[in-house]
């Protein structure tokens, strides 16, 4: 029974981390139809910002929740103004340009920090369920993800910013009809998406050893989760993260982490073959 709870927590954690990893990409893709291939590197930057500021003696939660998102958000803003802005509605070109940026960031971070693995330890101690020890930080990640999802849902549903966002997702003209220049909406979207991505990287940083190329491990997962989720932002993200999280963890428990990873990827291929427009392209339509 205790073991069952441990597995349940691991599955929830797995789903939560997929949500975290995918959130920023989903926002940017959902609103702007831009696939940000530098997504993984934005996470990596979030991690490095956190580690650096912790090393300078700043409180770890402050670093994770405020400093990292703000810094990466600003980087995102600069990237949007300098590069992405020139490439709107050119899907393939934005993919290529952001991929170039991802290499660029890897290079810059390597030159500053070197390739040596860095990291910080988790700020929350483990606790026990029966005879089992569970990482307390995993619970923190689950809570952060849940909080993000709920607030995203309410912001989109209840606020004026959410209305504009939903309008822009339908078409850029709606935003301008509401009196906002799409240019500014896009800029804000990219900022928010990048900040969220930075947050994700920061939150996950204490669990992993970070190197400049760490982002590569995230981008494919994020990409798959978002595309498989389909057009609805919140429901799509939750449903595909749940599906992949469960598949991944079950196979990991039954066999090994490799089988878990491969099972996730195979599930993605099958899913896209059966539902070419993602989960919410076929089910849960017209949800957020």
């Amino acid at each position, binding site marked *: 029974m205790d*073991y069952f709870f441990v597995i349940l927590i*691991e599955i929830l954690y*797995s789903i939560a981390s997929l949500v975290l990893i995918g959130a920023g990409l989903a926002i940017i893709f959902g609103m702007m139809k831009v696939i940000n291939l530098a997504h993984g590197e934005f996470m990596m930057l979030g991690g490095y910002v956190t580690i650096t500021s912790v090393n300078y003696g700043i409180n770890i939660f402050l670093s994770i929740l405020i400093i990292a998102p703000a810094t990466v958000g600003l980087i995102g803003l600069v990237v949007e103004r300098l590069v992405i802005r020139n490439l709107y509605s050119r899907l393939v070109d934005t993919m290529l340009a952001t991929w170039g940026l991802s290499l660029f960031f890897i290079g810059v971070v390597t030159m500053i920090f070197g*390739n040596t*693995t860095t990291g910080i*330890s988790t700020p929350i101690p483990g606790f026990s369920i029966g005879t089992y020890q569970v*990482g307390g930080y995993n619970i923190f990640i689950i809570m952060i993800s849940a909080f993000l999802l709920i607030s995203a849902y309410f912001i989109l549903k209840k606020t004026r910013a959410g209305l504009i966002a939903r309008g822009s997702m339908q078409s850029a003209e709606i935003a301008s009809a509401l009196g906002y220049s799409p240019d500014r909406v896009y800029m804000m979207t990219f900022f928010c998406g990048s900040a969220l991505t930075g947050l994700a990287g920061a939150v996950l940083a204490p669990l992993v050893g970070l190197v400049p190329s760490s982002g590569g491990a995230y981008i494919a997962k994020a990409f798959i989760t978002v595309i498989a989720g389909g057009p609805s932002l919140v429901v799509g993200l939750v449903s595909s993260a749940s599906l992949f999280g469960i598949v991944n963890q079950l196979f990991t428990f039954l066999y090994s982490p*490799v089988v878990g990873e491969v099972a996730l990827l195979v599930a993605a291929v099958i899913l896209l073959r059966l539902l070419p427009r993602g989960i919410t392209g076929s089910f849960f339509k017209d949800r957020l």
Partner: protein
Amino acid sequence: MSLNRRVFLTQSTAVAAAAVLPNISVASDTIKLGSILDTSGIFDAYGKPMDLAMRLAVGEINSSGGLLGKEIEIVAYDTQSDMALYSQYGQQLTRQDKVDVVHGGILSASREAIRQTMRKSNTLYFYNVLYEGGVCDRNIFINGVTPAQQVEALVPYALEKSGPKVYILAADYNYGQITTLWIKKFVQENGGETIAADFFPLDVSDFGSTIAKIQAAAPDLVIAPLVGGAHLSFFRQWAASGMKDKIPLASTTVGVGNEHKVLTPEEGNGIMVAYNYSQELDTPANNEFKRKWEDAYGDSRLIHEIAVSHYQGIHTWAEAVRRANSFERDEVIAVLETGLSINGPAGKVTVDPKTHHAILDVHIMEIENQGMTVIETLPQRQPIDTQEVCDLEANPNDNTQYVIDF
């Protein structure tokens, strides 16, 4: 295996026939040492200190008058952690630069990418890295520790400190697989029992479910030959879940690239390891070496196991050249095969004539406050794994990497 060998033999005869290109050595004032290392890309944490160690060693030799009156010229290439570039630069070193010796290669894949090139072109090759063992080739000298050398020392100590039930977590590549076999063997010989062995590809960084699985299996000891940045997450997550004080850890890899300096004391303290070198080794030779390093580069904290192996490898070669009084490959090999020894920062290193591997001191250590404290030193350990399969005295034309069958 037999077919493999047949292929190799036919290949090498053909190569020998083709490689009778005249190797005219023009008299010059320098001799060329080829270096091929990843000093950028994801493996540069290993490669950069190795590069520094190589330059330190060459600098020492040159400042004391060079070798046989000639200055050593370094021809170095950065392979950028890309295996394809090894093949390319390997060819460059042998064909275009025509170097006299090559030191380098970090991952086993990189060694295998250039080993045949070195053999075909009769270029003496030193591979100075801890690796999985089994390479049997008269043209190569290997200076790092092999699994059996480590595991033979580590397992009895760790078992005694914890208990008989062992859980193994290993990196999923040759090194991890082979090391796991040796761990199982020595666990059994020492009266223990291996209850499970899990393998992880090098980019796995989420060990949550594994930690739960380990707890369900309830071992007395976890041995973790995990490799690289992603795998470091295991030690972090292990500590984060509060397991560190419940089940002891041992490893044959943590610390090789100074990983223990990335882990906090809370995460790293108490992990049991066994290597040839530790910065905390308090011997005159090591203190002298650290002083020289600091004079040259400032920070001696960068020094790690394989940088020292590399340093010792270069001095081994230099000593052999001096004794042979020649740069000719065959004469240098002949001297090396007499069982040549040098004294390096990590103690005495002797060439094993049968395998061209190294006989060296292995220290059982525990990680303590980002350092490795020596518990016990086992002097002059033989590379028993490779010795089981390789005998270059009997078969000088052998050219195989054996996988040891149990």
